[in-house]
């Protein structure tokens, strides 16, 4: 197992390097640049700016300088768009925000989704099952960019219970609407996957054996059925978790949370090269890390899987 983890981590480094180079090339291939605007800058002013940010250097040198800066000093460079701030500042401010609402959304989606899916499977064809299936279909067809404005309309304008946006350092009032908006559709997917997987497991021979042994229904479910039923759910949860904690631009835009997702999308539009790179590397590393984590968890849950 340890050698498996070591091998995976060793592969992660070239993967990240390829990611950096590819992103760099694609970014430069896109038309426009960070300092193009409706009012083209006079050549002298543009030259000063390009010199300041090293854009006057040859392309290969820019990549080399960048990689060296990142590797040796963990310095992702200055933002081209937000001129008083560095990429490190932006990530340090935005990532904790995203991490907070992302982790809460994940917990809510996973706990409610799994409970709902499992309950629906156990009480198949009962009113509970129909309600659960109805809810999951409804929640899945309602994208969060539709749901966010509706939530604000109901909870802020009509009921006046919750603020319609902002972060305020992560106060719980500011957390509720983003978490509902972000978690609902994932919750629905998790419930559906859990339900079908659970149904499949409940109809297997070893469950029938367990029931025949005279074990109590709760023991059959928690002790024997839940763990194998979790395997497909787990492979869904891994990427979902990464997606949630690395930012949702919809949440950031609709709830003005100041999270990393907004910076990521804006940086692409603004051609803010250093911010694009910084967040790409962050998201890339997270993806690699959590995929590895899911693989490890797999082996732990299912003894048949060995690396």
């Amino acid at each position, binding site marked *: 197992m340890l050698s498996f983890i070591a091998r995976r981590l060793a592969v992660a480094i070239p993967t990240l390097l390829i990611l950096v180079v590819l992103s760099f090339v694609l970014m430069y291939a896109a038309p426009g640049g960070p300092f193009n605007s409706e009012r083209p800058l006079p050549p002298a002013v543009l030259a000063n700016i390009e010199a300041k940010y090293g854009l006057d250097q040859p392309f290969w040198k820019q990549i080399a300088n960048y990689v060296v800066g990142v590797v040796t000093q963990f310095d992702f460079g200055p933002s081209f768009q937000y001129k*008083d701030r560095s990429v490190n500042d932006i990530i340090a401010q935005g990532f904790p925000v995203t991490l907070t609402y992302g982790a809460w959304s994940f917990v809510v989606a996973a706990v409610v989704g799994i409970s709902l899916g499992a309950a629906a499977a156990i009480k198949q064809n009962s009113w509970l099952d129909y309600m659960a299936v109805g809810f999951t279909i409804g929640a899945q067809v309602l994208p969060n960019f539709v749901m966010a404005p509706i939530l604000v309309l109901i909870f802020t304008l009509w009921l006046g219970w919750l603020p319609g946006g902002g972060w305020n350092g992560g106060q719980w009032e500011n957390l509720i609407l983003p978490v509902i908006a972000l978690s609902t559709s994932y919750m629905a997917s998790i419930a559906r996957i859990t339900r079908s997987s659970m149904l499949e497991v409940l109809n297997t021979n070893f469950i029938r054996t367990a029931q025949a042994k005279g074990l109590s229904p709760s023991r059959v479910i928690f002790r024997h059925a839940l763990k194998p039923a979790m395997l497909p759910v787990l492979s869904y949860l891994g990427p979902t978790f990464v997606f949630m904690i690395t930012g949702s631009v919809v949440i950031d835009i609709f709830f003005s949370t100041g999270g990393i997702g907004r910076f990521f999308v804006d940086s692409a539009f603004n051609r803010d090269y250093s911010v694009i790179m910084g967040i790409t590397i962050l998201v890339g590393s997270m993806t690699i890390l959590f995929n590895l984590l899911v693989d490890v968890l797999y082996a732990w849950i299912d003894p048949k899987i060995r690396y």
Partner: protein
Amino acid sequence: MTLTSMLKATTAATLVFAASAAFADSHATHPDTGEALATEQTFTYRVGDESPSYDPGVAEDVDGSAVVRDLFEGLMNQDAEGNLVPGVATGYEVSEDGKTYTFTLRDNAKWSNGDPVVAGDFVYAWKRAAAPELASPYAWFFELMSIENAAAVVAGDMEPSELGVSAPDDLTLVVSLSQPLPYFPQMVTHATTFPVHKATVDAFGTDWTTPENMVSNGAYVMSEFVPQEKLVRTRNEMYWDNENTIIETVTKLVITDENIALTRYLAGELDQTDVPAGQFPRLSAERPDEAISVPSACSYYYTINMTDTTNPALLDVNVRQALAMAIDRDVIVEAVLAGGQKPAYTFTHWATAGFETPDTPMASMTQEERNAKAVELMTAAGFGADNPLDVSLIFNTSEAHRSVAIAVSQMWKQTLGVETELGNQEWQTFLETRGNQDYEIARGAWCADYNEASTFLDLMQSDSGYNDAKYSNPRVDELMAEAKTSENPQAAYTEVEQIIAEDMPIIPVYHYAEVNMQSADLGGWPFTNFEQNWYSKDLYKIAE
């Protein structure tokens, strides 16, 4: 809650209470208007995006400049009508030849740390903003101001110390211009010319603009800043005119989605927000005291590629005239935009100070006459039902631009049988396409940098970097050069507008209006300031 945070909270509460009590005493009514003032004096407004910088030397956008105007104070300010009023300077004198301006500074202006604001702070700030090291995107503003040696300093050919600004003593600032510029004093209300506290910049580098570090001289100080979420400013106790400041706290919230912002406004979270396109008629019917439309200093137009990469038909002036005439601007402003915009037949915005909109043939016709004339011109150019013109029209991605483009293409189709291929492009791609003349017709808009017609008409000069039509007319260049130093440039502007109306390198479509929802209890908003330059120190909340 720890003991320290409890202590802090208690102290803060006491301070707030003390401040509001003092406030209630001194400001029960507004000193000028006599209106009763509300006990809570806060102003919360919405912007669509975070600003690139709040460093006066670097700030480049409208929203960022509004914040900088609160945090810092320049030589002169604007009043509600946009007239110059004293800021840090109490006044100025111009030399006989119009090339030297001498500003006298007030002796009671202070930085937020208590240091006096001196002429040397302006000299430092201007040299810093022009120097290549800072690489300010607004460094060119000093060239626009005609300050001596500005171009060479920006290009790095001269030391910043050669810039034409000096401080013979702490309260005197002398500015030398390379040529007389009648509207020069108007330009010192611009953020790029605001003073900067040298000791703070030296101590903190680019981090000097954080709330903990910033030392500023305006009516407010930055007390909290969370990028992409909010920026809070509270009054500066050191400000020389602090006793006349009424609003205690100003909060700028970044809310990207206009509709969410409107919902939050309706829920009472905001005092001001923008009205989404097309919703003005409904909102002004429901809340007439709050839905407000005022002229805003931008013009919307279609630019026509006049180089050899264009559609050859567009090089025919008859075709350009016909396309311009066949646009029913009343339909665009009343049905498509519906926010108090005005049809445009000239490039310069109708509300620009000192500018009289000249008569152009097209402006005085009815739409029927324009359509008839357009058909006539199109036939003369050799196009008709059996030989229709095909053109392409590009715009940057936006619902509003799409709606206008669709309406225009329909009008061209119905009146002239022109087939228009519409294309939208993401902003950066669009700029590159348009800037490289890789288009036939493209959307454009221009907003005034200062309240004078040359801010628009400069674009029509052959060598203007913003002239994407690549239009060139020696007479226009001559007139614009003349207008620069003329005491009364209106005649030149009239002629330029008439030449444009004849050559039609750009098709003016409409003049912008700013459409806002604004709390009825907010007083002092400068509706009549054409550049929409507002200062929080002039605002107040009226008691309900």
